[in-house]
């Protein structure tokens, strides 16, 4: 690693000292320090909610710390320190949820934030020059909303580079990418750090694999506290997992998750074959409410007693497919079979699943409220809510608690519990653990498996491929509106998400639904 040879006197590209940040009574960051050496890639590792993003938002001037100091290349950053100041001093940040204006062009997005006249031609040539220099090629006149996710990410990085950024913070950059795209990005990150002694990258991630693959140094946060830091050579996958999750958690939880992800599912899947078809799609075509064709060809079956995972990069048509399977969107062509009691858990719980300012009882009443008539049995509903809270371990003040007052994890547990409340025969979930910490994630996964074991047909979409692999018995890959069933294998699924499907990688198709399915050895070659 080139970084080790960097002169020791060179000040840290970015240094945080004793940073503390509170939100109300919650201590989000407690006396956290971080040294990003010039010329290196520094992985900031931790579970969701560990404080990684908060720390970097402090570094970038988006949040004012309650204590501690920040310095860039040895020069302290004095408050008020704003993103504008950060960028002026060569620090750039690419957020997990991109900060791009979809309706504007690449060039306009790149130019945003400057002053005076906007010279489109000049910015376009800057964009092209950066493309030539770094390999991040983009059409300056393209509308950002029309670009695929990977190109939007390039646009974010180019935006930073156009401001002459030398220290780049990337927040979970691989989360939205297919595995091959993620590999390419990590290679680029390495090259960027190596290309100039003043460059450095902070890689915020919860993926051990990414950190170990590319970083020179690693800092681990757990619940707002720095629990481990040092050069990458000091760590192993196991020691990092211990640090991230805390003593005791790993042995039971992570191992179970990791084992799940890597166990062939032949027995379970075979069992499922015995189960009846619950969800069934045959050459289905779906148009969204604006009439745009989102799914061109989907043929698959989900049986009772199995979890089928759906893998896809953002914008492949999964949004429409899941809603059609849940009976919320009509199909334009083909045949779709879905039971009337199918339960659906949408990814955006605030927008699509909860009445945030209503009580939990009213939120329970919301389930299938369109099919009710007459008076609502409020007393019964309240009792059922109370029972559900205790049965599913939802932490809330009671049935009368307002949904908004619950933590994200408990909101999601409630949403899932509500979906399972009156024993549906099928469950469709979309990014069920987005924004949840490790514990809540594990609880959601357990609930999905319990639902499967109770005989439900479960269809899970997650934008995180590892989550799909962890919970699914079988895997469907969706690319550009076409569904293929593929072997439950990281590389194979990853390629299928990008539309690369060889005959060998197809596990089975509609034509051979009951064929014996074994992971094809050719697929991983």
């Amino acid at each position, binding site marked *: 690693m080139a970084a080790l040879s960097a002169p020791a006197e060179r000040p840290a590209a970015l240094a945080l000292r004793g940073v503390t940040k509170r939100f109300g009574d919650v201590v989000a960051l407690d006396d956290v320090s971080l040294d990003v050496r010039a010329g290196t890639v520094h992985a900031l590792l931790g579970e969701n909610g560990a404080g990684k993003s908060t720390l970097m938002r402090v570094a970038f001037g*988006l949040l004012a710390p309650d204590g501690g100091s920040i310095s860039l290349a040895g020069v302290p950053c004095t408050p008020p320190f*704003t*993103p*504008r100041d950060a*960028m002026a001093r060569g620090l750039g*940040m690419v*957020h997990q*949820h*991109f*900060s*791009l*204006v*979809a*309706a*504007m062009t690449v060039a*306009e*997005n790149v*130019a*945003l*934030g*400057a*002053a*005076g*006249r*906007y*010279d*489109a031609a000049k910015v376009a040539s800057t964009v092209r020059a950066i493309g030539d220099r770094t390999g991040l090629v983009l059409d300056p006149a393209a509308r950002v909303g029309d670009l695929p996710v990977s190109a939007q990410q390039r646009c974010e990085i180019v*935006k930073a580079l156009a401001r002459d950024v030398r220290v780049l913070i990337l927040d979970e950059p691989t989360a939205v990418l297919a595995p091959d795209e993620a590999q390419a990005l990590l290679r680029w990150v390495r090259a960027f750090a190596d290309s100039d002694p003043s460059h450095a990258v902070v890689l915020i991630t919860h993926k051990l694999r990414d950190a170990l693959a590319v970083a020179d140094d690693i800092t681990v946060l757990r619940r707002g506290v720095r629990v481990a830091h040092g050069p990458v050579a000091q760590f192993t996958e196991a020691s990092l997992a211990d640090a991230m999750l805390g003593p005791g958690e790993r042995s039971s939880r992570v191992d179970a998750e990791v084992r799940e992800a890597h166990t062939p599912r032949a027995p379970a899947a075979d069992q499922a074959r015995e189960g009846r078809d619950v969800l069934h799609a045959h050459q289905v075509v779906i148009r969204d409410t604006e009439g745009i064709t989102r799914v061109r060809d989907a043929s698959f079956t989900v049986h009772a007693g199995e979890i089928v995972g759906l893998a896809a990069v953002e914008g492949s048509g999964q949004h429409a497919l899941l809603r059609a399977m849940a009976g919320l969107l009509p199909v334009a062509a083909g045949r779709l079979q879905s039971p009337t009691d199918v339960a659906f858990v949408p990814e955006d719980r605030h927008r699509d699943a909860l009445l945030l300012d209503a009580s939990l009882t009213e939120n329970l009443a919301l389930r299938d409220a369109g099919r009710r008539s007459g008076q609502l049995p409020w007393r019964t509903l309240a009792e059922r809510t109370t029972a559900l809270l205790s049965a599913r371990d939802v932490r809330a003040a009671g049935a009368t608690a307002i949904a908004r007052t619950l933590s994200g994890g408990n909101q999601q547990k409630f949403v899932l519990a509500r979906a399972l409340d009156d024993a549906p025969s099928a469950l469709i979930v979309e990014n069920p653990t987005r924004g949840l910490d490790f514990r809540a994630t594990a609880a959601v996964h357990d609930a999905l498996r319990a639902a499967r074991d109770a005989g439900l047909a479960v269809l899970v979409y997650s934008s995180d491929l590892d989550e799909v692999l962890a919970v699914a018995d079988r895997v469907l890959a969706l690319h550009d509106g076409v569904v293929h069933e593929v072997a439950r294998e990281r590389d194979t699924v990853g390629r299928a998400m990008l539309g690369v499907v060889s005959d060998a990688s197809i596990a089975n198709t509609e034509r051979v639904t009951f064929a014996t399915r074994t992971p094809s050895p050719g697929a991983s070659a």
Partner: protein
Amino acid sequence: MITPLDDFLAATVRTATPLALAALGECLTERSGVINIGLEGAIICGAFGATVAAGTVAATAGGALGLTAGFVIGAAAGAVIALLFALFTVWWRADQIITGTAITLFSLGLTGLLYKTVYGATGVGLTLPTLDAWAIPGLSALPVIGRALFAQPLITYALYLFVPWLAWWFARTHAGLALRATGESPDAALAAGVSPRRVQLLATVAGGTLAGLAGATLVLAQSGTFVEGMSAGKGFIAIAIVVLGRWSPRGVAAAALLFGGASALQYLFQSLGWTGVPYQLFLALPYVLTLLVLARASARSRAPAALARRELTLS
């Protein structure tokens, strides 16, 4: 010879002028993600401010200074009302539509109250200087459009320059980029170092200033006097004009002309001697037209993505 058509076209441009001013202001505000339903309030306050200032100053310092004072104070009154609206909506993130409605009711009531307080119940003693049309030599002699376009008050000519300038400003300045970005994605704007609050505050106040000018124009260049409730829904029509004009300055100007034409039809039909048609039909026409136009335009047009959003930033 001046034909009824010449009169109609001239009346179209004359009626369109305050509508265009207010709609351009609203366009500016909406591109930043704020829908100012209180525009009507800014117009009526602008009209009243212009009335008081022009009347008072003209009485001592002459008509020209009175007019200047009228337009300046009218614009300022619109700005103040928009600032009040921004305090609630941009600062406290209160619901833009409910606040805007309240601001409109407040302004209509307040101007009515102050008018009666200052000028008594009948408005006797209210004399105002007026901004008369000034025909541009040569151009105003052009056939058909000459009188319509080039025999108008100065404020109309100012609009001819303002519309292309605003379009240029949206597209070719970084401030314009920041404004549009705020209206589309305040998060993106914030991440790029733009303060969405600041942008929305300035855009709302600027929009209110233009609406105040529109009110001043109603008084000083058209009716020559103040009447309670004289804004008569023009603020709401202006909002419809923005939709029809698809949030672009040139489109907004063209849409304003269409509405000016609808209002001017009554003069045309009067001069043609069509007395059989009830005049209420003509009075109602701009409002009906607004409804029809909105039905046509709303479905097809795309508003700024963050328009009327309460949470400023999502993350």
